[in-house]
């Protein structure tokens, strides 16, 4: 079985983003970029399926400018076999991404697609579900466990209030939650080896997809700042303040 994994280049999760002074967007100049953490979990899960003998090939796809090849190489160093970059000047909207990936699926015919549940930049949490709709595949979103059983995959999902397990006919789409696995670190020999793994570059036109804007970003502003309050000296004082000043207990 072939497993397709998608990865996105995003701001490193340790970096606190700043809004540009003209409020047109966030400032990403000279900011450290990295593989989206949820995508990293997706790569790890696919590589584990290969190590277990369930998958025989792991193909990794990213969409964006040339710089995103760096994240494809990271995924290859973690154990993916080959990469596909779909070159676009900027990151397309989720629906556009889903349309491009649907075409990749048509060409590659994977048995399973594993994606991050959301990217930590736009926080949309929608591309996997959109791709599932466009390809008419079932979906197992927010996965904390993935078990393949013949032509089916059982996915345990993190839902409000607990866990839910669904059985999906394959091919299917899985989106990862944080506790699905703990991604490994790439070893230096594997990083070197990754540089020689195949990486195809395609354009949206090659795939026959015309990208269209469905939304317009009007402005980006910093969130309302919360002021630090006071330090209390004792539990007594805390209870007194909560009762008489804040009046919340």
């Amino acid at each position: 079985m072939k497993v397709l994994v998608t990865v996105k280049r995003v701001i490193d999760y340790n970096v606190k983003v700043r809004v540009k002074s003209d409020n047109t967007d966030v400032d990403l100049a000279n900011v450290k970029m990295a593989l989206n953490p949820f995508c990293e979990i997706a790569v790890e899960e696919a590589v584990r399926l290969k190590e277990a003998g369930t998958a025989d090939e792991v193909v990794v796809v990213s969409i964006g400018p040339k710089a995103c090849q760096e994240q494809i190489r990271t995924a290859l160093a973690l154990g993916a076999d080959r990469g596909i970059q779909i070159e676009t000047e900027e990151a397309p909207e989720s629906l556009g991404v889903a349309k491009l990936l649907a075409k990749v699926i048509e060409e590659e015919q994977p048995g399973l697609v594993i994606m991050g549940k959301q990217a930590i930049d736009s926080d949309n949490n929608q591309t996997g579900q959109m791709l599932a709709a466009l390809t008419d595949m079932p979906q197992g979103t927010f996965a904390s466990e993935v078990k393949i059983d013949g032509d089916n995959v059982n996915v345990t999902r993190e839902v409000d209030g607990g866990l839910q397990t669904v059985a999906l006919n394959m091919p299917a789409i899985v989106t990862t939650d944080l506790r699905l696995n703990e991604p490994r670190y790439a070893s230096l020999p594997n990083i070197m080896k990754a540089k020689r793994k195949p990486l195809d570059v395609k354009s949206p036109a090659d795939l026959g997809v015309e990208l269209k804007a469905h939304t317009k970003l009007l402005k980006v502003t910093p969130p309302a700042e919360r002021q630090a309050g006071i330090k209390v000296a004792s539990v007594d004082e805390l209870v007194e303040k909560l009762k008489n000043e804040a009046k919340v207990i």
Partner: protein
Amino acid sequence: MAILVIAEHDNSTLKGATLNAVTAATQMGGDVHLLVAGANCGAVAEAGAAVAGINKLLVADNAAYEHQLAENLSKLVTEVAEDYSHVVAPATTTGKNFLPRVAALLDVAQISDITAVESENTFQRPIYAGNAIATVESLDPVKVITVRGTAFDAAAAEGGSATVETLDAVHDAGVSSFVGEEMAKSDRPELTAANVIISGGRGMGNGENFAMLEKIADKLGAAVGASRAAVDAGFVPNDMQVGQTGKIVAPELYIAVGISGAIQHLAGMKDSKIIVAINKDEEAPIFSVADYGLVADLFDAVPELEKLL
């Protein structure tokens, strides 16, 4: 054109998040209709018809919709959506699961997790874990939107008198099935609905020590939450996690115990009305958002707090 809200429920009760989504929908202008799709969900339909501000209630009662499987539900909602200008759902794990499918089937964008309605086609939503707020205009004929519950007041559960229409359409994609679920059982309020929350972090040391927080929770009628660090360390189950990747909460009072205040956690609770932090590290970032900070060892302060309540 009217606005369609998709109800969140478990076939017996209408979930509170629906009421916040209804409030957001009423701000978009136009009549608001509520769709209840489930199995043997008559009680939910009745509750939905009573919600203030709902003009019409649509009910699709069929086994195919029992577990809100995205493959089935999205086909039903897409078919119904034809007559609407907006399709709205709460940004819960259910809404986040099925609604993007609807957007893709309609060939439109989804605007996720909105926190404010500026006009019928312009919305605010947090990005970068709430470190920036984007104002986004939809260019689509149908706006597909999920709503962050904590950003909107709940609509009144009583006082409405919607007309009821039954939908006979059955969409069973036949590609997915429900296997089972493990839901946390608790007598305390749900995190996203609680007025008071007390959360523990890595500083709690282990899962047993959360019993100290539970005692306070019982006295205050509070829910118990946790930081991602406490969940990752295996102290408590994941459904207790408050943060960007867990639950987004905004109670009247949030008490953070042994939580340092990573960006990830702050994104999930910084809209709380009053924040209390108890931490022995006076440099902990949690103090920068706390209304009342107490620098103390939690193992001394928490039992003392319990006694005084």
